[in-house]
């Protein structure tokens, strides 16, 4: 009996203390389930055991980015890039943080760096494609007759290259870059999802909704109080769209009429 029991009840082998790799492995599992805070604590413990682990610092960067803490994430991505200057994931992470803070040139440059090192890098390619800006129009028209609808909080019309054509109130022009980027990222996401060309959008935030329409050559957005129905908001943006198109046509016709025809030269 005692022999049989001893066979069943083997002494438990001494437990191996967890290594840095164990902590990182567990942290990654938690990260994959959206459990960022606990994952970050495990990464910290892992980095105490192996402070120079690229995996650990990369995980720390991801977790900061996932918790929307930009500066610590940037610091960790940069730490990785000092040790491995062409690390694709660190480059992508850094590029995304640059975009988040409005540094478009920095973001593009970092994405180019990632693609030079790894030409077949779909995420970097997708982001770079989305950030391509059309060449500026030769003589951008102003939409001086476009009026903000009653009750609206703001109105912004942009050319396809981001040139401000109309802004009301004036300080709405400060978000022209953001609107332009939103439209190009959304257009790229729709294309990647196989849903075709972007036409309209509605963005809801705490106190306002903004409704926009775009055709690649013109982006028109109107901010309305939160609670405005989609139907009402889209009606407003469609009405403004028609007015803007009419004004652009009139302006272009006048510009064409103003060109003095050059008399044909006589032959010798």
């Amino acid at each position, binding site marked *: 009996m005692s022999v049989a029991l001893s066979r069943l009840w083997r002494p438990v082998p001494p437990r191996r203390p967890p290594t840095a790799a164990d902590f990182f492995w567990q942290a990654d599992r938690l990260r994959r389930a959206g459990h960022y*805070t606990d994952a970050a604590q495990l990464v910290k413990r892992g980095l105490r055991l192996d402070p120079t682990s690229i995996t650990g610092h990369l995980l720390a960067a991801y977790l900061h980015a996932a918790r*929307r803490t930009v500066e610590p994430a940037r610091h960790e991505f940069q730490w990785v890039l000092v040790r491995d200057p062409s690390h694709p994931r660190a480059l992508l992470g850094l590029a995304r943080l640059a975009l988040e803070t409005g540094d478009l040139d920095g973001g593009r440059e970092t994405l180019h760096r990632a693609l030079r090192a790894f030409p077949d890098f779909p995420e970097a390619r997708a982001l770079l494609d989305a950030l391509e800006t059309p060449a500026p129009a030769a003589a951008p028209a102003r939409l001086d007759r476009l009026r903000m609808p009653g009750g609206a909080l703001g109105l912004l019309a942009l050319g396809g290259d981001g040139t401000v054509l109309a802004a009301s109130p004036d300080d709405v022009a400060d*978000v022209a870059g953001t609107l332009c980027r*939103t439209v190009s990222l959304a257009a790229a996401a729709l294309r990647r999802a196989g849903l075709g060309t972007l036409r309209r959008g509605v963005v809801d935030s705490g106190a306002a909704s903004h409704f926009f329409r775009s055709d690649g050559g013109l982006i028109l957005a109107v901010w309305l109080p939160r609670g405005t129905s989609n139907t009402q908001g889209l009606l407003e943006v469609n009405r403004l769209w028609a007015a803007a198109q009419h004004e652009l046509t009139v302006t272009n016709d006048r510009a064409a009429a103003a060109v003095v025809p050059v008399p044909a030269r006589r032959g010798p």
Partner: protein
Amino acid sequence: MSLLRMGLELDGSSRGRQVRDIVHGLRSVAGARGALLVAPDGFVIAAEAPPSVALDPLAALAATLGRDLEVGAARLGRGAFQTAVFSADDGALFLSTTRIGFVVLLAEPQANIATIRAALEEAVTLIDSGWAPSATAT
């Protein structure tokens, strides 16, 4: 296996199942073509999308767009970003923010916007309550 490891694995796997269930629920809404939950760093937490859709580039774009909308809304001072709908010729993309990332729903052109918005709101509530700081394991 240490108790810590076992506990974390159990917790991690049940949470993983929970997010997969939420994404599956969204995918099952009438008019939905696919659904994803993407972390703010662009990592795909869970996805059910047509095989023709390359998930990683779409997730990178959706996370960048989501963060852009969050930061832009804060800059405008008109409250925190909540939900966006982008319509195209062949369908629409819905994007909602949650505590752990962005819920993305791809919809057919004929999908009922109100039904999808309601399903998204429910998913956001489930995620935000399930992943509230007090609900996380320590």
